């Protein structure tokens, strides 16, 4: 399931709902991305996330489909927020549910790694030096590359 929203979400509620009614599921792995208060040496007072409505949902659905293709998953959840957020706020939740932990844990890492490089979101941060757009990180592309070897 994919959701792109301005509002916050409740992690406990979301994870419970993901596994509810399916007792085949033996494990749920999750990752929560939060707004940090530092960027390099600069203090960050707020972060504004912008996205490309339409393409965002399409790319997230593709990532979800790819995770299902690679691992035996019973459920996948991606929630990504947009708008102005402050340090400590939740940005993203990804979760994968499977009968066994290996698939759930691997799929969870895959989901966030692919999301970072494929989902059309952009961040601008408010710092004492003014507002600036966040640049992409080579580390994120490297993290995605580890998944180019298909386990199947």
């Amino acid at each position, binding site marked *: 399931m994919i959701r792109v929203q301005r509002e916050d979400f409740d992690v406990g509620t979301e994870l419970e709902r993901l596994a509810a009614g399916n007792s085949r599921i033996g494990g749920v792995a999750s990752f929560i*991305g939060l707004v940090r208060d530092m960027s390099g040496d600069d203090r960050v007072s707020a972060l504004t996330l912008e996205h490309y409505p339409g*393409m965002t949902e399409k790319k997230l659905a593709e990532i979800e489909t790819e995770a299902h293709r690679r691992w035996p998953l019973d459920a996948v959840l991606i929630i990504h927020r947009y708008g102005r957020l402050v340090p400590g706020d939740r940005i993203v939740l990804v979760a994968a549910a499977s009968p066994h932990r290996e698939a759930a844990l691997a799929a969870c890492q895959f989901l966030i790694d692919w999301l*970072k490089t494929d989902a059309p979101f952009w961040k601008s941060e408010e710092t004492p030096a003014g507002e600036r757009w966040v640049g992409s990180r080579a580390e994120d592309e490297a993290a995605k590359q580890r998944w180019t070897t298909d386990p199947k």
Partner: protein
Amino acid sequence: MKLIYLAWLRARIGCAEEEIDLPPGVKDVAGLLDWLRSRGSGYAEAVRDLSVVRVAVNQNYVGLEHPVREGDEIAVFPPVTGG
């Protein structure tokens, strides 16, 4: 065709989207970016460095050689930074 500008490209160009007719002689993404550069200093500045410009045609990431056609939705934006 519809052109969409996102993140700092929107700020430099000074508009979020516009409807245009396919410019004469433009056949692919590279041609469209050349045409954009000719439209003024904001555009030229925004698409000057192609190492920080990405393009989607009809919501798919594409390369410079990808064809563009009347009716396409074409988005121009910097490398993504979500998550």
